[in-house]
């Protein structure tokens, strides 16, 4: 693992020449190389800085300048800091036994994979013997309700939708419908929106306040770049996010956005999307994404 980082680091280390121990300047050079790898992997600049200062702190703490095998120690530290920042592993979904339904609200930028992921989560719940209800809360994208309806049909999960109405009211009525009809999980598929869209963010907050979801998941595209900081912060600043789902990680994007979003939101990455089919949802493992980001 860590191909790209290993390559970059061995270039730096070979530059140290025959000496066994490294100097402060060598450490600085090493940090610059790590920075290069992380930026090319799409980790946000501010998060890279935070990462490097943690690595430097640990390296100094591990007495790296006296170390006879500094390269091994540094790679070990990088891996540890990355896993520490990407973890903990937490795939649990707290069920609400008081009101009889557990509400999960999905939100995120346009095209991030929310509707598909709603289907994936519904399928996951069915496997765990739950009775989920999908709710078509995107009333603005052409064909969005139909898309969720087709998704639900393909996995035998009911979809709640209304001919017309505001998303807030549709969601509120959907929860009441779920309790009434004996569904135990409600998954709200909301419309994609920009974090800077005041009106739509207020709509999302309304949905949140009216349905009091047990879980709010931010669905993020695995190929996001530096903007991941702003968009994640935009959502996290409005209401409590409980988990992150990174999609489209079946591609070759390095996925640095995972580190960015995790660091900004401060909540666990619960799952990753690894394909278009509704089975393509995997539990998140920090060590796997760590080695991917490091190339």
């Amino acid at each position: 693992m860590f191909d790209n980082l290993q390559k970059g680091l061995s270039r730096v280390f070979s530059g140290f020449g025959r000496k066994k121990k490294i100097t402060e300047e060598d450490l600085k050079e090493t940090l610059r190389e790590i920075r290069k790898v992380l930026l090319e992997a799409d980790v946000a600049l501010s998060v890279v800085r935070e990462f490097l200062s943690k690595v430097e702190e640990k390296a100094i703490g591990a007495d790296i300048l006296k170390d006879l095998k500094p390269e091994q120690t540094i790679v070990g530290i990088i891996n540890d800091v990355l896993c520490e920042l990407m973890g903990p592993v937490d795939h649990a979904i707290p069920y609400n036994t008081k009101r009889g339904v557990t509400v999960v609200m999905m939100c995120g930028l346009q095209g991030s994979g929310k509707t598909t992921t709603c289907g994936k989560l519904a399928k996951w719940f069915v496997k765990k013997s739950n009775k989920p209800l999908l709710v078509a809360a995107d009333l603005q994208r052409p064909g969005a309700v139909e898309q969720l309806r087709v998704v639900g049909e393909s996995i035998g999960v009911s979809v709640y939708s209304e001919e017309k109405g505001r998303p807030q009211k549709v969601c509120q009525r959907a929860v009441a419908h779920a309790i009434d009809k004996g569904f135990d999980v409600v998954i709200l598929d909301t419309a994609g929106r920009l974090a800077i869209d005041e009106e739509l963010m207020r709509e999302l907050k309304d949905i949140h306040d009216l349905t009091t979801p047990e879980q709010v998941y931010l669905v993020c595209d695995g190929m996001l770049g530096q903007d991941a900081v702003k968009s994640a912060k935009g959502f996290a600043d409005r209401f409590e996010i409980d988990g992150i789902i990174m999609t489209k990680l079946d591609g070759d994007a390095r996925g640095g956005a995972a580190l960015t979003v995790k660091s900004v939101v401060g909540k666990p990455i619960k799952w990753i999307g690894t394909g278009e089919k509704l089975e393509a949802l995997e539990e998140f493992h920090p060590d796997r994404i760590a080695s991917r980001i490091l190339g």
Partner: protein
Amino acid sequence: TLVGKTIDRDILDSVLEVLIEADISPVVAEALVSELEANYKRTVIESEEQLTTFLKEKLKEQLASRPCDLIVADKPPTVILIVGVNGSGKTTSIAKLAWLLREDGKKVMIGACDTFRAAAVEQLRIWAERTGSLFETKGQGADPAAVAFSATEKAIEQGVDVLILDTAGRLHTNKNLMAELSKIKRVVAKKIPEAPHECLMIVDGTTGQNALVQAMEFKKATDVTGLFVTKLDGTAKGGVVIRIHREIDIPVKFIGVGEKMENIKPFDAGDFVEALFS
């Protein structure tokens, strides 16, 4: 204030930060900053804008050298193939192109070659209706190449000016899906040898460095002739296109600035570069 100072590490770092945060590739950003440093070595900075003006000029140089207009076929229909990764904004961007062409009095047909994703045909059908475009489909599950072929045939028969083909989102790492795209291109060329005359790759403006390899791979599969960068109404800057333009020689032709069909703008290098620094 920078005035009266000479360039130092802190100033260069803060400039580098702006470039990197705009998703300009780190290697391109470093090169620009080195150029800046070389140019202003030992000179005293006269105004705050001096450094950004220098950078803006350099960036505009990298973007402005290619024509950004849509390619027009010698005789109609002009066929435009739309490709790109999942969720980038292909279907919505087609609506925008159709709207633009319709405003210009053109007869437009849209072909539904995304026969895979749930309700893809329905989504496109609604946009065809809203833009007053003809719509060619064989329904969900049909062979995309068959739809492309018959749409091309019908476009010729019905005297259409522009035929725009929607395709399913796909990751460039999926060999089979990329081969399917090449097949769609070949099949269209069977009907009109020079078609598709234009192949626009839709790039999500929030995408990071992966956009470069996307452009490389899609270009191999369908000879991409232009980029359409979407979602620039958000906070993302789309700086990845600079390297795509430079290393893969594909110009940006349009940008998407919203979810409505009117939210399309022809690419303007000057505006784009100004926005990188705003």
